[in-house]
């Protein structure tokens, strides 16, 4: 399914140049230019530079390895020292550098043990007795991944965990791997918005439909790259053009471009718009810039997810 996009002579990765210019002395990146380094921005920038063949990726991967906790997880920022959802992105990035290495595989094992929580016993009891109180229509028995340990599973952290673990299939021998990925697939199907696409993870509240977002839709589509037969995948891909009619943020264009490329959908128009936006990029979020660098790569499946 992978396609090669014919770029029109524009330097395909101005975003990579920006990332290199913004790299900190310690090898990492903060959320915004000049901020102290944190895991999410550094993992995504490391991934983007690695895929671009830039040597600066090496220092970024060194930063990631140094920031890893003994548990195998990564903190949001080194000063916090508590395991965080960003572990997925660090593992995903390292899966391109050294997929069988201890850092990536220990991170993957932490991810396999990390589970979102369901409803508490008394809430479940309440819903049996007072079903009218159930304000959202979710299958709370499905376990994905939470933003914060011990809380509920949501679309974005679940999607990131799945792309990391799907990338490491073959490198992590753990009986839970396929079971958790399968349940993650089912959770994303459960959380899809009624008209297609995903938001943060609530399709309906109090009976009223909520709308999808481009970035979370794209994240879920990347996580379901190997599950194209599932109806929410086609529905999600179908609503992206309409969402991008009213949203041309760098983050939205980049992630949707990557999702299109991964699913073999023509991404030319999205990438052309993104090129224009990157040319005027000044001081936005580093993570958006990193996703843009990946989206502007000429390989449509630059994230290596199409074959699971």
């Amino acid at each position, binding site marked *: 399914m992978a396609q090669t996009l014919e770029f029109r002579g524009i330097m395909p990765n101005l975003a990579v140049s920006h990332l290199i210019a913004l790299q900190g002395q310690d090898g990492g990146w903060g959320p915004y230019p000049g901020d102290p380094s944190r895991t999410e921005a550094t993992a995504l920038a490391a991934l983007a530079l690695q895929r671009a063949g830039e040597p600066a990726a090496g220092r970024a991967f060194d930063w990631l390895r140094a920031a890893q906790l003994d548990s195998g997880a990564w903190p949001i920022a080194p000063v*916090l020292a508590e395991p965080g959802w960003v572990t997925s992105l660090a593992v995903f990035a390292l899966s391109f550098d050294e997929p069988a290495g201890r850092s990536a595989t220990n991170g993957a094992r932490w991810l396999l043990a990390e589970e979102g929580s369901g409803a508490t016993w008394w809430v479940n009891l309440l819903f049996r007795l007072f079903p009218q109180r159930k304000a959202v229509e979710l299958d709370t028995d499905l376990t994905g991944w939470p933003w914060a340990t011990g809380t509920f599973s949501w679309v974005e952290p679940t999607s990131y965990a799945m792309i990391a673990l799907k990338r490491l299939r073959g490198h992590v021998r753990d009986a839970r791997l396929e079971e958790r990925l399968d349940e993650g697939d089912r959770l994303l199907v459960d959380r899809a918005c009624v008209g297609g696409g995903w938001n943060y993870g609530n399709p309906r509240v109090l009976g*009223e439909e909520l709308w999808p977002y481009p*970035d979370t839709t794209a994240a879920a589509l990347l996580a379901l790259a190997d599950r194209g037969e599932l109806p929410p995948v086609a529905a999600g891909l179908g609503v992206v053009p309409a969402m991008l009619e009213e949203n041309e943020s760098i983050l939205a264009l980049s992630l949707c471009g990557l999702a299109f490329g991964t699913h073999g959908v023509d991404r030319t128009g999205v990438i052309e718009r993104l090129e224009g936006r990157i040319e005027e990029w000044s001081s936005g*979020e580093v993570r958006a810039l990193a996703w843009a660098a990946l989206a502007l790569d000429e390989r449509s499946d630059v994230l290596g997810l199409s074959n699971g």
Partner: protein
Amino acid sequence: MSGVTYWGSPMADRRDFLKLMAGGAAAATMGCADPDPWTPAAVRKTDRSAVAVLPAPDYDEARLVEVVRDGIGMFDLDVRGRRVVLKPNLVEFDPRGVINTHPALVAATVEAFRLEGATEVVVAEGPGHRRDNEYLLEASGLGAQLRDTGARFVDLNHDAVRRVELKTSFTGLGHLYLPETVLDAGLFVSMPKLKTHHWAGVTLSMKNLFGIVPSAIYGWPKNVLHWAGLEGSILDINAALDVPRFNIVDGILGMEGNGPIQGEAREVGILLFGEDPVAVDATGARLMSIDPLAVGYLSKADAFLGNADDALLEQRGDSLESHRTNFRVLSMFEEMKTEPSAEPE
């Protein structure tokens, strides 16, 4: 963890839960007085609190600068040489809705505090639903207003943080990491929209502080707070924030019905000002024809954090009654109303 709100109204659930347990575990604790869930350091309740309601018929920015300056002038605020941090409500965007604090009011407030002598006025928010700030800022119009005013925007979801020990134990979280931009503010101004809220009843200056809790740590949509309990989180955060505070509520167009996202616009035509967030929110509730002491977190806040009792409020500017509007609420909140909604949802 004391509650889960994503599956229903926390207050309603708790009421049901207490009914369910009546005569059981609840009875077993009768006679054992629980200690107050706050430390003496959390108590900020004063003898009286002032609030001001000023008319503001529309979002004309030049006129709003004057109204905001009038409102500020009714309080003993001296912002000369201080950095003022404005925290509007920018939780989500819907082109058909009135979810957020209007950008023209934010811009007018930037200008008003500059004219009052602030060294810098910063606009800061940690959006609760979306992670795409570029989109939120541009679609809402706030980005253009910030460029026009030259005010800096700080993304509180990703700001540098410091650990803050909680002075209250409503959630049992013990501590929160809060943004340095807020903790170091010379004056922190909560700028909510006047809205109903489908879990809490109302959302005003106190609930608006969910946006200062960094989602990079606590998740979207502020997941840890909802998991720990909505009301308790509102109380814990407000008690923890130990900086000079002021509140300006956008009540020009409010939201009734299924707020804070999917309700309908309701014209009230006022701005509401005050230093005591409990007093401001109690007045905001009354403006919506909602009894503030029937709102769980306001009732609890009235015990230690500020004044919700109207006998303890000094009304400045227009009378509350001259602008009181009968907001529609979800049927589960109808019992909070001081008069029945014309058309309950």
